């Protein structure tokens, strides 16, 4: 079953912060985050593993609440280059690493 992402779309001004949520009805082993720009392939951002630490690099970080089967992606001091569609992919463990993706969150950063 597809994880549910929220919000579906968000518009920011450069420098503002955003949070994108990903929620699953199934027990999760890992959550993967990707960003995709129009006409391009999804680009891997980060992965969070069950029992692992919160990840982050630069101004993008993420958390994983295993008990609630939820993950959140945090974008701080957004830049124009952050614009795109963000997808979470979830994996339940022992499944040949198959990912189930949410429908995506469209993030638009304006000057």
């Amino acid at each position, binding site marked *: 079953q*597809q994880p549910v992402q929220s919000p579906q779309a968000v518009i920011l001004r450069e420098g503002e912060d955003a949070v994108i949520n990903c929620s699953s009805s199934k027990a999760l082993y*890992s959550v*993967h985050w*990707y960003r995709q720009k129009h006409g*391009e*392939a*999804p*680009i*891997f951002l980060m*992965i969070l*593993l069950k029992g692992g630490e919160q990840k982050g690099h630069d101004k993008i970080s993420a958390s994983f609440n295993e008990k609630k089967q939820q993950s959140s992606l945090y974008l701080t001091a957004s830049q124009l280059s952050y614009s795109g569609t963000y*997808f979470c*992919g979830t*994996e339940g463990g022992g499944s*040949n*690493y*198959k*990912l*189930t*993706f*949410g*429908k*995506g969150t469209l993030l638009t950063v304006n000057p």
Partner: protein
Amino acid sequence: DAGITQSPRHKVTETGTPVTLRCHQTENHRYMYWYRQDPGHGLRLIHYSYGVKDTDKGEVSDGYSVSRSKTEDFLLTLESATSSQTSVYFCAIKQQGNSYEQYFGPGTRLTVT
């Protein structure tokens, strides 16, 4: 860049014709995946492979078959293309070893008329 190429990058075909898409990787990855991406649906898994000649179905496998006769190539075949199979198709690999990261190829845009 995980050394993944897809061919063709664009294809227009007619309903009822067979179509084969190719995913080629150069880094000896064991796990390979085919996804389709449609507006409003995100990425959906069609088939995947966990080794040479080892494949299994994903969530939207009807109308598709795959083959993997060597590590570097994973082929996706539409036996008789339908308009509902118009989509963008992405191949992905899982990084080797203990890494769980998956990386995508550049995609193939398929239009069935």
